[in-house]
């Protein structure tokens, strides 16, 4: 007779692995099902040209939840980090100047002073201020959302903790925090900084994957939410072995904890019997029974495709159908046959081409009408400068995120022309870093939003499984009333980036989802 599992996890993305590992550690018989032959979902390092490999989804890690690292003892499972890149971010100014934003704010400020009088000092104050605000906002991402508008007694301690943290800011900063959270990043940048280079790079940092320009309200939020810790206004880290290094450690931790991982086992639907999730059905018809099902697919897909509208209340269908998933970023990968630039020590982390706030806004404007701007936002990194594992000796790889690239182009499909133009935009940026580099390009890969959807299951190519807009964050993520990782179907849980606290390679949604499952198991639900 087929085995009955305590928990089946749909999808071996990093959050699915985190959730599975936590649950298995607590003694639950846990099965993780992955449809592809690789784990990690979009967090994947793979070859794109013989001998050249790249992190095909996200190409850097921001913040990984510290508890995930320690609870799952990822170091023991092989996770090591490259030395912290310094500079973590390098801005490419409008005049072609390369502005390394060194980890030391004083050093970074000194560079920025070239592009804005007073930014030397302003940058340091800005970074310190973001630290102060983020220290409170960060607690939000550790805290399960309360049941609003009527919080349960169990929510009280975490709410009180949040409230005390906020109170600890002092009267002035308490008001400030409320004021700045919903602000456009353009206004925050303008209030604190002078030069276009500084303002552009700050705005670009929070707009990755977001279907808004810097002038839209709510875009400042990631500045505080994705904050990395003291003085790291934008956290950037690279695991040894690329994203795969992190995923392998997670998978190893999950297996060591007793979870079973099955590849090539794509889930067709969630079994719902008597109103409760009781397992899953695979694409080949195999039924797998479990007491609980945890979905690492995005919540919209989970509810509308894996469960299906027929079994759901029409209001639930409607609210999940309205979750906005929008793919706005493309990945472009270049294989270069020689060293692309002389100034490699100034490009150890991310290189961002965002000459000004207005240029970013214009780049987003184009996408509003189904086009791609002549000068899109390009954020690139050259992993082969950091490690020898990406390209043959002496050769290099460029990984670039390009925005804004609509999921559906208005005038054409995502054909060769559109892809070539994206690649050309990236080559242009590389050429500015290293004149002559264009001739060194031997292979190109372009992953437009529909490709990201097809390859990684990102809904509409949305990197975050749902836009991190004000109306889809916190107690509204993925939808109001269902932000506590429990779905409207008893026994079915969400652990994807589409749930609180949201996207990025953090493991935080997987961790909170496992807590919800464990709490329910404890209560015998």
């Amino acid at each position, binding site marked *: 007779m087929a085995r009955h599992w305590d928990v089946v996890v749909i999808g071996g993305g990093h959050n699915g692995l985190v959730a599975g590992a936590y649950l298995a550690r607590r003694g639950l018989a846990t099965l993780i099902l992955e449809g592809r032959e690789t784990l990690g979902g979009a967090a994947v390092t793979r070859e794109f040209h013989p001998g050249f490999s790249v992190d095909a989804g996200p190409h850097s890690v921001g913040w990984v939840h510290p508890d995930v690292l320690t609870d799952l003892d990822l170091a023991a499972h092989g996770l090591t980090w490259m030395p912290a890149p310094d500079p973590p971010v390098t801005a490419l100014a409008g005049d072609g100047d390369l502005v390394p934003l060194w980890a030391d704010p004083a050093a970074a400020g000194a560079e920025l002073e070239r592009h804005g009088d007073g930014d030397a000092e302003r940058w340091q104050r800005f970074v310190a201020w973001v630290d102060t605000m983020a220290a409170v906002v960060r607690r939000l991402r550790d805290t399960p959302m309360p049941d609003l508008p009527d919080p349960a007694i169990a929510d009280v301690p975490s709410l009180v903790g949040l409230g005390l943290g906020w109170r600890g800011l002092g009267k002035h900063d308490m008001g400030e925090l409320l004021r700045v959270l919903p602000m456009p990043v353009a206004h925050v940048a303008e209030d604190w900084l002078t030069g276009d280079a500084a303002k552009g790079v700050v705005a670009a940092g929070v707009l990755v994957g977001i279907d808004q320009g810097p002038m839209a309200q709510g875009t400042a939020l990631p500045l505080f939410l994705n904050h990395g810790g003291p003085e790291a206004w934008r956290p950037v880290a690279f695991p040894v072995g690329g994203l795969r290094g992190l995923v392998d450690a997670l998978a190893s931790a999950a297996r060591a904890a007793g979870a079973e991982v099955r590849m090539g086992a794509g889930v067709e639907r969630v079994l719902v019997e008597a109103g409760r999730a009781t397992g899953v059905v695979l694409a080949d018809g195999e039924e797998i029974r479990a007491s609980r099902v945890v979905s690492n697919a995005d919540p919209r897909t989970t509810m509308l495709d894996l469960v299906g509208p027929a079994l759901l209340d029409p209001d639930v269908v409607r609210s999940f159908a309205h979750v906005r998933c929008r793919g706005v970023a493309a990945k472009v990968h270049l294989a270069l046959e020689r060293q692309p630039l002389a100034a490699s020590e100034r490009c150890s982390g991310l290189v961002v081409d965002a000459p000004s706030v207005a240029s970013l806004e214009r780049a987003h404007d184009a996408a509003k009408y189904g086009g791609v701007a002549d000068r899109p936002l390009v954020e690139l990194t050259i992993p082969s400068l950091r490690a020898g594992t990406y390209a043959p000796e002496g050769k290099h790889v460029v990984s670039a995120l390009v925005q804004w690239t609509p999921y559906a182009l208005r005038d054409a499909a995502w054909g060769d022309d559109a892809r070539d133009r994206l690649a050309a935009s990236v080559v242009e940026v590389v050429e500015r870093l290293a004149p002559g580099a264009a001739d060194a390009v031997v292979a190109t890969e372009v992953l437009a939003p529909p490709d990201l959807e097809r390859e990684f299951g990102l809904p509409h190519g949305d990197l975050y499984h749902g836009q991190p807009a004000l*109306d889809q964050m916190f107690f509204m993520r993925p939808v109001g009333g269902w932000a506590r990782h429990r779905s409207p179907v008893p026994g079915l849980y969400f652990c994807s980036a589409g749930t609180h606290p949201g996207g990025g390679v953090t493991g935080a949604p997987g961790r909170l989802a496992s807590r919800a499952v464990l709490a329910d198991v404890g209560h015998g639900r």
Partner: protein
Amino acid sequence: MTAAGRYDAVVIGGGHNGLVAAAYLARAGRRVRVVEQRAILGGAAVTEEPYPGFKYSACSYVVSLLRPEIIRDLDLPRHGLEILPLESTFTPLPDGDYLARWGDHDRTRAELARHSRRDADAYDEFGTLMYELAVAVRPILAMIPPDPTSLSLRDLGALLKLGRHGRSLGARKTFALYKLMTMSAADYLDEWFETEALKATMSASGIIGTFMGPRSPGTAYVLLHHYMGEIDGVFRAWGFQRGGTGAVSEAVASAARAHGAEITTGTGVRQVLVRDGRARGVVLDNGDELLADLVFSSLDPKRTFLRLLDAHHLPDDFVAAIRRFRIRGSSGKVNLALAGLPTFTGLPETTEHLRGAVSVSPTVEYLERAYDDAKYGAFSRAPYMDGILPSMIDPTMAPAGKHVMSLFVQYAPYDRIGGWDDAARDAFGDTVVRTLAQYAPDLEDLILHRQVWTPADMEREIGLTEGNIFHGELTLSQLFFLRPAPAWAQYRTPIANFYQCGSGTHPGGGITGQPGRLAALRALGKA
């Protein structure tokens, strides 16, 4: 300087909020003086007659949310308030068709069904939800915002009350309201409707007076305002004032005078007198001093705190907060004197649609592109406009057989690249007329006079900083307990006895009278 008078309270600015504050203070037995610098009262709520026989509500042109309690408390109908309904919204379309929403529900439904049966069904359900949410929001608009950073009993009590209010709404309405506060009008309406012209025309109400486009988060909230007008329907709080918007100001002024307030025009206030951290009165432009126990400013926050006061009277933090308060003007106004009624291609056989609003908002993309132009410092090449023909509703507004048309236009950024000189004003006026003439080809031949207001004109003539009609953008960072600055959203200021009572305070712009009322009640210790 001479002490020209001594009052219990001096109110700076005779706009509608200043007058409301004065009326409430006078009604409570205070000796009040209102000082207006222009020759006429009303601020942005004025009726002017720049061409003989043609009267314009020069700036503000519809009465939106004048609070029923104010109408009642001040007995405004007795003083001349008479708001006539605007019965329809007519959106002409480039293909010669149109979309109309009529005063009559069934007729609107049939018209919407002509464009989309689904939308006709959704419209009723949407209306029901908006009505419920408007009821939910109404008490919030009528309260003095609690200061969440304060631990005073009054603030904690008000926060508790607010929390209870939130709980009483239940989950469905709480989440719907939160979405409305944080989403863009376009995204919100996408969840309900498919007809572009309907979505565009509805979302237009979310962009009026803001420097945002229909796709900017935060614009959905204003959709509620339309429905708030309906709740107060018995008072006819939404529509056109007989005699033009200036007659609203006159009615409030009349009520204030009836309670004993003195109102003077033609001389403005140069400075607020401050001694030992307390306001003592004001100095007029002519050098006269008016001494008063309480001083109110209905001017916008920038003028109030950065012009009428020396910065050294204020804490640095506060001055910094006022400096960064965003007040970017985004709209213009074009008033036309017409020899006859324009004929809209889509509906040539009748004029009944001209008794309501004419909205140039064919698609959401049209509005968004209009916004795009303004972001980079140009007026919209194809602007959004909301027009009414006051003479169709109130024949006294124009000579017999002739008409006036007032067009509210977006976007016209205050910070236009190249500035706002006469040539730019003319070019803007030409663009507006040409745009409208695409839908009403005979318009240009009918124009007898044209008056164009740019944001720079509104600043210079009326004293609206940067030409912002709401005294500051209505963004999430500048609403409720953040308006105009955290910890200073309760009408008081860092200077004792000095109050703010203009649209730069909660609940913001539009002819609501609420800032004036709440400021007066707070100063009187009644709220």
